[in-house]
């Protein structure tokens, strides 16, 4: 029954990765910015929550405060960095490198403040194990799946049922028309990066609750999430989420047939081949 446990583990890590993917997809589809510094926001969320919990703040409140801080940080990055670059008509490459600079700043502030040690959350309940049949999951994993699926559902509801969500999708769909119908794209960009940062704070706290915190640990999840977003079709929240879960499950199950050190390599190999044959992604709508 190894495969079952592997499958379930894949679903757990995949759901968290899926939330990273939808947060990035929301930002990327709207602003078209390759927001690498998102990895820094993701990492910072965990450290903020860790600090709060270590100072005796209740767990739930710590999570909410971490989300709030990340929202503000996201808005700040868009408003103070990307918007300025946009006004200077910077190219993609310039924006990407500025984003890398922002990532370096966030990561190293964390490293300077918290050191590079792997930190564990001081919450004993998270590693308590629940047994369901032959499956063994801990509370951190269970919470990760539940909250991630809720985050996905919430994001879908927000994007399709609220006027702000529709406005964001409108700006993503046709920024020029948005400008001349007073949707104020610049303001929407700030909002969408803020919301994306709020969403990514959730896995940013939940994943380290299980696996520990590292200052430089955000880049690999972000890149994998990006690949999920592209393969799922840019603009499709469901595509990003489903593909992220798929990739994680595949990486877990692939261990049954290949040595683990190759699983990342194989993932990216499949992705590169995939891009050659279906570059618009699985869930992309006909255009």
């Amino acid at each position, binding site marked *: 029954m190894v495969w079952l446990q592997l499958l379930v583990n894949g679903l757990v890590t995949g759901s968290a990765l899926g939330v990273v993917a939808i947060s990035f997809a929301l930002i990327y589809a709207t602003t078209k910015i390759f927001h690498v510094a998102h990895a820094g926001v993701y990492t910072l969320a965990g450290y903020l929550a860790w600090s709060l919990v270590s100072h005796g703040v209740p767990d739930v409140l710590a999570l909410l405060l971490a989300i709030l801080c990340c929202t503000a940080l996201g808005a700040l990055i868009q408003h103070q960095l990307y918007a300025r670059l946009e006004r200077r008509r910077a190219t993609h490459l310039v924006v990407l490198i500025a984003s890398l600079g922002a990532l370096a700043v966030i990561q*190293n502030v964390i490293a300077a403040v918290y050191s*590079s040690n792997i930190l564990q959350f001081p919450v004993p309940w998270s*590693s308590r194990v629940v047994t369901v049949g032959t499956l063994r999951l801990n509370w951190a994993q269970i919470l990760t799946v539940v909250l991630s699926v809720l985050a996905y559902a919430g994001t879908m509801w927000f994007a399709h049922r609220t006027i702000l969500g529709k406005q964001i999708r409108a700006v993503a769909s046709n920024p020029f028309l948005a400008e001349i119908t007073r949707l104020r794209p610049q303001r929407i960009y700030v909002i969408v990066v803020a919301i994306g940062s709020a969403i990514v704070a959730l896995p940013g706290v939940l994943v380290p609750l299980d696996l*520990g915190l590292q*200052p430089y640990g955000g880049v690999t999840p972000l890149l994998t999430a990006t690949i999920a977003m592209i393969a799922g079709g840019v603009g499709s929240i469901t595509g990003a989420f489903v593909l992220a879960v798929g990739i994680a499950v595949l990486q877990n199950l692939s261990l049954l047939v290949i040595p683990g050190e190759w699983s990342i390599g194989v993932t990216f190999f499949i992705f590169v081949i995939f891009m050659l044959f279906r570059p618009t992604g699985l869930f992309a709508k006909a255009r």
Partner: protein
Amino acid sequence: MIKVQGTRRAFAAVVTSVLLSGLLRPAMAADETIRLGAILPLTGPGAVVGTQEMRGIQFAMDAANAKGGVQGHKIEVIFEDNQAKPDVSVLSFNKLVDLQKVPMIFTGYSGPSLAMAPLATRKKILMINAGAQSDKLTKASPYLVNTLPSTGDEVAVMAKYLVQQGKKKAAVLFENDAAGIGGRDDFLELFPKAGGTILAQEAVQFGQTDYRPALLKLAAAKPDVLYVVITAGMVPLVQQLKQMNPDFLVAGTTFMADPAAIADPASNGIIHTQVQIDAPPELSAAFKAKYGDDMDFFARQYYNAAQIMLTVIDKVLSEKKPVTGENLHDTLFAIRKFQGLIPMEFKSNTATVPIGINKMENGKDVTLLQVTAE
């Protein structure tokens, strides 16, 4: 022509900056301070280990300087961040040696140490490695001295012990880097030699703390013992092992002995070889008070290595010899036996130190038996 001028100005800036970086520090060389170097990964994923190593060295030097230094000379260690990359290490090495005129350099990490080893030989700069255990380091350069045994020594002790205990079927979990692969290779060679069989092996990336897939796959092979060669992320490892409720023994190397992992109840019953290096409680407490972190294995190792260097420098100075890499090297082997945190003897470039087998029990690391590896 504006562009050309801009280019020229930028060139000037580069040249000036390079010259500045060279000239500023030696200007202070008139005082009596003895400068040593340390090239460690202080940013990037490897910083987990590198930062502790740096603290160990600095802690020892601060203590020595507070007591007036070595024969009136203050000791300063210049830390260079190599991000665990070989090319940056070579640049840093040349910089420390050319510009700061350091006679010795602390290193860690196999790759960077191997890249610097030929330079150390050529320039007669003593390099002390107190963290990396790759077997290749033992013969890389006469000037590269390892204050801890290579993984091979630890693995030999553990392999023999495991077979004696009747744990003859093993699975191996290793980190996919020089340290982990070295340990795995040794185990793959020595465990069958001791009479055991190896059922499966699985790698994890350094710093990746989700060990579950690999653990599940290895557990499915139904081993008597899981041999672990991983350098960081011990707490998630013991928690994930505990979550699986394994019916096999877990055995590891010195790296297992992360204080936080030992303190975690999930680590109950794990055994590991231990390069004996205990810090007295008051030293650990002072370290924790200063840095807020426990004095872990790496901090103790580099603290110990720094103590060795202080002893060697003291002897060189008392013999009225200049503090050069060659003199430090010769004096180190002339002294040969050191009594730092542990007794240590240099029969070759790699120290011979006692190795123990420890068991984690109720938040404590209990020594089961002790041997001295050859």
